[in-house]
């Protein structure tokens, strides 16, 4: 997929206007806090719809009530226009002028954003890894995306029922177990693929001295979820919230047979995270039959030779990649300069 243009209004401090992007390896160069990350984020939001409602307000320029992002995306079957409007607590999406749910943007477009903070996937809390999984599996399966929304709503109601001593809990249990089991099944299927692809990417990146292993760690028994819930009844009533289910599961990462969360160095964590992003890239490419838009943030901060080479090879393998940094990689075919939210073509 090719990002033909990006248009923004009131998005952080990006200057309003429309920018056209060519093919090739595009470098966006600028100092700190000039808007490099915002630019990639804006494109990512519009291509995936992924932006937590609680964060919407933070991307709208101070003093404004609404922001807008639009892209023209070229796919093998033609060019389409994707638009996202943002206002306090609200996201509106359009594809070729027709209103769609924001989650539905992921049916029309796909993008992978690679950032230095990705190391948090390894060292962060289980919720970081769940968010990664949920976003990825939602893009691969709209059914998962819908089940997840219903599950979270049911979870909130069930927790409220647990807090008041479990009145009427049975009706929430049935649906909770049903949706929970569906999410577990779809996650297992996705993780099987993710695991293989991540492990391959990791051995390409880091060799085989320390073997990487990804495993889904589940809290509930899929085969008899509801029985498991009744076994946990007393504990759940005491804590006033749901103790088992996919909202508590984790993606366990082991490096050389020990938990990466506890033992991986910052560098090892960045390599693992990059392997996970490469697997995400591969899965989306398989799902759409063409490569997702590739966005690489702060490439110049990546000092490790293996990871630099890996990133540049990945960026050269697709028709178009956008890479930001304080300086441009030698391989860049087009240079943009960003200063104070304003983007200009250099060469």
């Amino acid at each position, binding site marked *: 997929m090719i990002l033909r243009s990006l248009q923004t209004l009131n998005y952080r401090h990006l200057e309003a206007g429309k920018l056209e992007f060519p093919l090739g390896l595009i470098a966006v160069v600028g100092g700190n806090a000039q808007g490099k990350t915002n630019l990639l984020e804006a494109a990512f939001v519009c291509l995936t719809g992924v932006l937590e409602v609680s964060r919407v307000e933070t991307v709208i320029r101070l003093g404004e009530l609404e922001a807008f992002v639009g892209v023209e995306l070229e796919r093998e079957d033609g060019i389409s226009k994707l638009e996202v409007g943002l206002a306090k607590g609200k996201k509106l999406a359009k594809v070729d002028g027709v209103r769609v749910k924001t989650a539905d943007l992921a049916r029309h477009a796909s993008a992978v954003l690679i950032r230095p903070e990705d190391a948090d996937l390894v060292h962060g809390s289980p919720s970081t890894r769940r968010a990664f999984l949920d976003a990825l599996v939602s893009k691969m399966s*709209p*059914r998962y995306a*819908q089940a997840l929304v219903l599950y979270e709503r049911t979870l909130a*109601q*069930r927790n*409220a029922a647990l807090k008041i001593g479990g009145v*009427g809990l*049975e009706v929430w249990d049935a*649906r909770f177990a049903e949706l929970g089991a569906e999410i577990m099944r779809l996650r297992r299927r996705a993780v099987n693929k993710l695991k293989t692809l991540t492990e391959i990417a990791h051995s390409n990146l880091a060799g085989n001295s320390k073997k990487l292993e990804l495993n889904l760690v589940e809290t509930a028994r899929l085969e008899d979820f509801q029985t498991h819930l009744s076994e946990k009844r007393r504990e759940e009533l005491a804590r006033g919230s749901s103790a088992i289910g996919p909202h508590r599961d984790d993606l366990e990462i082991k490096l050389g047979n020990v938990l990466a969360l506890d033992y991986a160095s910052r560098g090892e964590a960045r390599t693992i995270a990059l392997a996970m992003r490469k697997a995400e890239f591969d899965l989306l490419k398989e799902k759409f039959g063409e490569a997702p838009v590739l966005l690489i943030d702060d490439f110049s901060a990546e000092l490790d030779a293996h990871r630099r080479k890996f990133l540049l090879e990945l960026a050269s393998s697709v028709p178009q990649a956008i890479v930001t940094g304080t300086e441009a990689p030698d391989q860049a075919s087009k240079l943009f300069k960003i200063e104070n939210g304003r983007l200009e073509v250099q060469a």
Partner: protein
Amino acid sequence: MKYPNSLIQLIRELSRLPGVGPKSAQRLAFHLFSSSDQDVKNLSDAILEAKKILKLCPVCYNITDTDLCAVCSDPTRDQDIICVVEEPGDVIAIERSGEFEGLYHVLHGALSPMNGVGPEQIKIAGLLERIQNREGAPVEVILATSTTVEGEATSMFVQRSLEPLGVNVSRIAYGLPVGGALEYADEVTLGRAIAGRRQVTKI
């Protein structure tokens, strides 16, 4: 500077109405102030009059201005089918379809522990009592609560509560929107439409 007390009071009362925020309450208050005395009197009379004569039907809990609501007091309606809905507005919607000839039961809400709504807060006990006290032919109960998470849970709760009473219970079918192409239906709707299919040829 502060608004006069009577204006503050009016804004406060208006902002307690559902769906009215402080800003719209203020706009409504200014509008009322600039309206003619007669218009304001008509409005307040309408509110008081409605409040005075409207009540809940003692059988089905729909809103009515007579002792029994129009549906419950109509002997030509099928007395053996009761359609359970969340709100009075749902009755109007189903009546508009012209497809239903039976009676209703209005729950006035759906289960939502988050908002402090349990089985006691909606009119479920009234439904059970109504069915227990019947004589004659067995009834069918149609569960027509909404398809939200809360509506589904409410439907299941009513279904379970009815189990010991030996009545036939059905849930309204989830379908595809009429006139819509299959490829545009979302997965959940489509999945349910397939699960709830009906046979057209039997061999």
